[in-house]
C-alpha cells in the first residue's frame, strides 16, 4: 500500500489533524478569554460586597460627616450632594440631548447632521477630566467652586449618551407613525412631541438611566468644579459633597476607619450603577419583545 498516492494521502491526513487541532485550540482560547474577562468583574463585585457590607449601616447612610475621633459619621451629605448634582445635570442634559437627537434624525445625511453625530462621538470620547478643566475655565475662575459648575460638567458627560440612545430609538420608531401624523395636518413639532417622543419614550428613559449611571461615579470632573465638602449643603452656589469624591478621599486616607467607609461608599455606588444598567437592559429587552 505504499504507492506515492497513498503516501500523499497520509501526509494530507496529518495536515488535516493539525488543522483540526489548531481549530479547537484557538476556539478554546477565545472561550478562555471570555472567562478571563469575567474574572475581574466577579472579583471586584465580590470584594465590594464583602468589604462594603461590613461597614454599611443605617447610621452610616443617614448621618453626616464626623471626625474619625467621633466615629467617622456617615455619608448623608454625600448622598444628598450626588442626588442634587446628578439631578440637576439630568435636567440640563435631557432636553438638549433629546432635541439634538431630533435634529440628527431629521438631517441624517446633511453635513451639519453628520457633524453633530461626529461631535457626539467626540464628546463621549473626551476624558472627563478635560471636561472638568473646561468648566473650571468657564465658570469657576470667575465665580468659585459651586454645585452649579459640577452639574454642568456632569451634564456635558451625560449629553452624548442621551443623544445617542434617543437617536437609536427614534430610528427604530416606524416611519409610518410620523407620516400618519403629518398627513393629518399636524405640524412637525406636534408630531415630534405627541407622536414620536411617546413612541420612543422607553428609549429616552433607558438613555437617561445609562447617562445617570455613567456620571454618578464620576470623580475627576468634580475635583475642579463641585470641589467637595464635609457639610450637608443644598446651596447651588457653594461647594458640594458627592459620593465618588468622598470615596476617593476616604480611600487614600491613612485612617483604617476611613478606608472601611470607602468600601461602604463603593458598595452604595456599585449598587446604584448596576441597578441602573440592569434596569436599562431589562427595559430595552421588554421593549424589543413588544415591538416584535
Amino acid at each position, binding site marked *: 500500500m505504499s504507492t506515492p498516492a497513498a503516501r500523499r494521502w497520509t501526509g494530507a491526513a496529518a495536515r488535516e489533524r493539525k488543522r483540526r487541532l489548531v481549530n479547537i485550540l484557538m476556539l478554546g482560547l*477565545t472561550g478562555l*478569554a471570555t472567562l478571563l*474577562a469575567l474574572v475581574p468583574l466577579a472579583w471586584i463585585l465580590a470584594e465590594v460586597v464583602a468589604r462594603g457590607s461590613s461597614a454599611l449601616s443605617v447610621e452610616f447612610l443617614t448621618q453626616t460627616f464626623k471626625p474619625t475621633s467621633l466615629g467617622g459619621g456617615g455619608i448623608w451629605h454625600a448622598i444628598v450632594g450626588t442626588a442634587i448634582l446628578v439631578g440637576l445635570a439630568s435636567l440640563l442634559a435631557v432636553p438638549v440631548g433629546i432635541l*439634538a437627537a431630533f435634529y*440628527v434624525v431629521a438631517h441624517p445625511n446633511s453635513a451639519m447632521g453628520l457633524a*453633530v453625530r461626529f461631535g457626539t462621538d467626540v*464628546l463621549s470620547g473626551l476624558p472627563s477630566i478635560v471636561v472638568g478643566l473646561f468648566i473650571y475655565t468657564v465658570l469657576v475662575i470667575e465665580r468659585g467652586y459651586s454645585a452649579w459648575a459640577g452639574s454642568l460638567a456632569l451634564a456635558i458627560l451625560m449629553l452624548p449618551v442621551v443623544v445617542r440612545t434617543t437617536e437609536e430609538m427614534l430610528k427604530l420608531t416606524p416611519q409610518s407613525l410620523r407620516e400618519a401624523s403629518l398627513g393629518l395636518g399636524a405640524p412637525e413639532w406636534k408630531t415630534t412631541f405627541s407622536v414620536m417622543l411617546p413612541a420612543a419614550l422607553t428609549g429616552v428613559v433607558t438613555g437617561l438611566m445609562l447617562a445617570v449611571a455613567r456620571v454618578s461615579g464620576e470623580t475627576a470632573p468634580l*475635583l475642579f468644579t463641585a470641589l467637595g465638602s464635609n457639610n450637608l449643603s443644598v446651596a447651588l452656589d457653594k461647594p458640594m459633597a458627592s459620593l465618588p469624591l468622598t470615596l*476617593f478621599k476616604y480611600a487614600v486616607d491613612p485612617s483604617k476607619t476611613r478606608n472601611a467607609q470607602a468600601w461602604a461608599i463603593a458598595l452604595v455606588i456599585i449598587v446604584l450603577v448596576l441597578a441602573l444598567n440592569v434596569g436599562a437592559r431589562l427595559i430595552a429587552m421588554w421593549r424589543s419583545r413588544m415591538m416584535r
Partner: protein
Amino acid sequence: MISTQPRALRPASSPVVRALQHGDIPYRGVIALSALAILGLVVGVGVMLWIYSEPTRVAAGWSFVVETAWNPVGEVFGAAPFILGTLNTSLVALIVAFPLGLGVAIFLAELCPIRLRALLGFMVELLAAIPSVVYGAWGIFVFIPAFVQPLGDFLMNTFGNPSRFPFLPILKGPFFGASTLAAGLILAVMILPTISAISRDVLLAVPRAQREAALALGSTRWETIWQVVLPYGLSGILGGIILGLGRALGETMAVTMVIGNVAQVSASLLSPGYSMASVIANEWGESRTPMYASALIEIGLLLFVTSLLLNIVARLLVWSVSRRNPDAGGGRA
C-alpha cells in the same frame, strides 16, 4: 383628539402663525440650536483650554512637551514625564487587553450560542460601567497586594537583574506595588469592554456570505475567522483598539490611585510614575501660582487634542466597515 367641528368653520390661523408654519420654524430653530450646542461644546473645550494655557505656552513653547523636569516651586514645567507615563501605561493596557478583547469578541460573535451572547456581552460591558474611582480603591487594597505585588516581585527577581538580563531595563527594581505596571493592568481591565464591544459589532457586521464561502471551500471555523472574517473587519477592529487607547489615555482616578505619582522618567515598568490625567487631578489643589495652573491646563489641552485625533481616526475606521455593509447595522461604539 378628533375634532367634530368641520375644518372650514374654524377661525383661520393668523398670518403670524402661518408665517411660522404653525410653529415649525421656531421648532426647527430650537433643535438646530441644541445640535449646535454639541458642536459648540467640542469647539469650546479646545478654545478655553487654549486660552487659559497661554502663560506656559508663551513661556515654554514646544519645549514644554520634551522638558523632563517638573519643579513647580522653581517654576520649571516639563510635561515629558507625564506624556511618557501616559504612553507607558496605555501601551501595557493595550498589550494585555487587545488579545483578550479580540478573543472575547470572536467568542461572542462567532461561537457563543445566541441565547448566551446577550448576557455574556452585557456582563463584559458591565466592566465599563464600574466607576473609575471604584477601580482605584480595588487597585489599592486588593489588586496590588494580591496580584501586582507577587507578579512584580517575580518579574523583578527573574528578569530584573541587570547582570543577567541587561537588555531588560523595563523590569528593573525596586518595586513597591504602586507602579506603571499596576496602572497599566487596571487600565487593561477598564478598556477591555471597549475593545471587545466594538470588535464584536464589527465582526457581526461581516456578511454571512463571506463565512459561508470560506466554510464551503473546506476551511475550519478558525481558518474562516482568521483568514476571512478578521481581515474583512480589520479596520473596524483597529478603530476599536484606538477608541480603547483613547479611553486609557484619559482615565484619571484609577490611575492616580495606583501609579505612585512620582514625576520621573524611568524605563522600568516596576517603578512609580505619573500620567497626564493623574498629575492634573493630583496637583490641582496645590496649583496656587498662575504658571502652575497654566501648566496643568496645557497638559489638559494636550489630552484634548490627542483624544480628538484618536477619535477622528477611530470613527473613520469603524465607519468604513459599517458603511461597506450598511444593513448589518453594527459598528457604532
